[in-house]
């Protein structure tokens, strides 16, 4: 009897967790929370900028806990997203079970394509879990400054990075006169070496370099102008080892596959459905 009661309770909780009503409520709460976040973050980006560098756990213990008035929305966001993931998982799993049970009604191809929206839903969960994993597990070397000719060694490895030269692209145009002689594309030439392995790579904004499991990101550089103050050439890099990347890239690939399957079903089977009617 006790076991039956427990099964009943679990079944009730599962149904509630997968309910579309919960989805609607969560979406409304997310909207309200993000509005609160938008107001809180205004001119307080300092509070959140370090989240990328020190990771979620250390961030909660420092910036997060000590500025609750401005960070509470983020904690609420984490809770709501967790609930949304659970809601999506329960709802999607219910649908998948139903779909498998009714597989006789479809041909094998049609049956497979019917999974496309569910694949996208599962992919979204993987994406969110990947980002959470990334913020929890990434190791970051913050603001590693290099000047031309200097070399650093990656932690725990023999691999080395040498900053060979800085070859920026300057703006030379008439349309935006105030930008004349400003760097519009900072390009740092790096030599990546590990034993006999040698490779030259160009590091720029939105153009990170990947080497031996580490992502190298350009954070800052100087000088920013051709004829400005006499400032020594330098680049500041963030070097990240982030196991979460694989998880959310898997999520992106899965989501894209689901999207293509959905489009294919819509294009190829819509006609078939109409004809059969």
């Amino acid at each position, binding site marked *: 009897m006790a076991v039956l009661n427990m099964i009943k*309770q679990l079944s009730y909780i599962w149904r509630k967790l997968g309910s579309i009503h919960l989805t609607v409520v969560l979406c409304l709460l997310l909207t309200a929370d993000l509005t609160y976040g938008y107001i809180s973050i205004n001119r307080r980006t300092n509070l959140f900028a370090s989240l990328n560098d020190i990771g979620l756990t250390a961030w909660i*213990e420092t910036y997060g806990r000590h500025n609750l008035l401005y960070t509470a929305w983020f904690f609420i966001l984490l809770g709501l997203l967790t609930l949304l993931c659970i809601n999506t998982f329960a709802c999607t799993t219910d649908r998948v079970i139903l779909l498998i049970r009714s597989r006789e009604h479809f041909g094998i191809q049609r049956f497979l394509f019917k999974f496309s929206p569910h694949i996208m839903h599962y992919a979204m969960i993987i994406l969110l879990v990947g980002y959470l994993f990334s913020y929890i597990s990434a190791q970051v070397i913050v603001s590693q400054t290099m000047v031309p000719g200097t070399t650093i060694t990656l932690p725990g490895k023999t691999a080395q990075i040498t900053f060979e030269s800085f070859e920026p692209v300057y703006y030379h145009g008439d349309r935006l006169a105030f930008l004349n002689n400003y760097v519009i594309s900072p390009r740092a030439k790096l030599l990546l070496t590990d034993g006999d392995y040698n490779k030259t790579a160009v590091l720029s904004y939105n153009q990170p370099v990947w080497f031996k499991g580490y992502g190298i990101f350009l954070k800052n550089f100087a000088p920013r102008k051709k004829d400005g103050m006499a400032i020594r050439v330098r680049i500041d890099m963030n070097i990240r080892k982030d196991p979460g990347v694989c998880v959310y890239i898997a999520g992106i690939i899965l989501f894209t596959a689901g999207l293509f399957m959905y489009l294919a079903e819509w294009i190829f089977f819509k006609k078939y459905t109409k004809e059969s009617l």
Partner: protein
Amino acid sequence: MNDNKNIRRLSPILIALIIIGCSQANPDKQQSFVQIGEFTLNRISKDRIDVHDGAGRMLVLIPRNIPAPKDVDPVKIVRTPVKRVVAYGFFDVAVLRALGVLEEVLVGVTNPAGNWYIKEVKQGLASGKIAYLGDASSIDYERIKQQSPELVLTWDPSIIPMLDELGIPCAVTSTPTAMCLNARMRFVQFLAPFFNREAEATAFFDRVNNTLLEIREKTANAGSAPKVMWGDIYEKRVLVEPGNAWVGELIGLTQSDYLFEDVYGTSCIEISVERFLYSGEEADILFTYRTKEYGATSKAALARMNPLFSDIKPLKSGKVYAPLPHYVQSGDHLDEILTEIAAIIHPKLYPDFKRRYFTELPDTDPPDIGGLI
């Protein structure tokens, strides 16, 4: 149904327990976290403070008599109290003075003796205790090595690789975004643990904070709100203090309109000349960056240096103030500077106020100075 009710009743208690559990995850840790703009201090234990400098780099402060932690790069460990310091910026030197350690610890600067107005630095340079290390863009590293500093305070991160090689810890004291008023007032509390001078830092902050409260009280019913701009037009660029900078915030607090309130970013941020002139049409007061030595001798002199200047209201019918040369080295007199700015903006509230850090520019140069320009 009863079970469901129980679950509903229990859920708030469960949530509360989780929150309490999370907040007391490390009951043994004596941890306090202080954020000062982009700088942070995190007291990990009685004998360890992790600090993040303006570039986001972490340094670990450890007392001299305690063994170094093995999980930290030796060049990131600063032994406290620090006894020998090289400082690049005037503000850093002024903060050392506010902490009462300037004479004791400063061993190197990047400005020659002629540029200094701080008595202790002039004397130190004359006696040889403090070394001039060369211009910031061409530092003499051999000289740095000779001075054996235990810490370098700099605004220029490009020296970090060389200092790492020399094994000298370095803290970047500039930040990508301008220091807000709170950070400017509290910066002394960031440097204090390096020298075990927390009490002096608290006293300094309290003094400045009390001054700020007095200013707010005095200007609360000031009536008219003067429009203020802070910046300059140079030959090829226009630089201003953004609204998030301490001067922008202070002007806002003194019941006046800061006309670059909408500009956000680094101190001395570059804007377009059109934006500057747009604000110049309605401004009552202009604070220029230039001192007399750099040509700010009169409104006419400014207009001669850049004819675009002559179209702005402060030059035609308003007031223009230039900093006196020792202003940039007076960070330890922040309370006086705040009061003087408030007095300039609301002269009626501060009758007979004697200015010490700014000078009002006359319309034209006195004959002898005018002839020189």
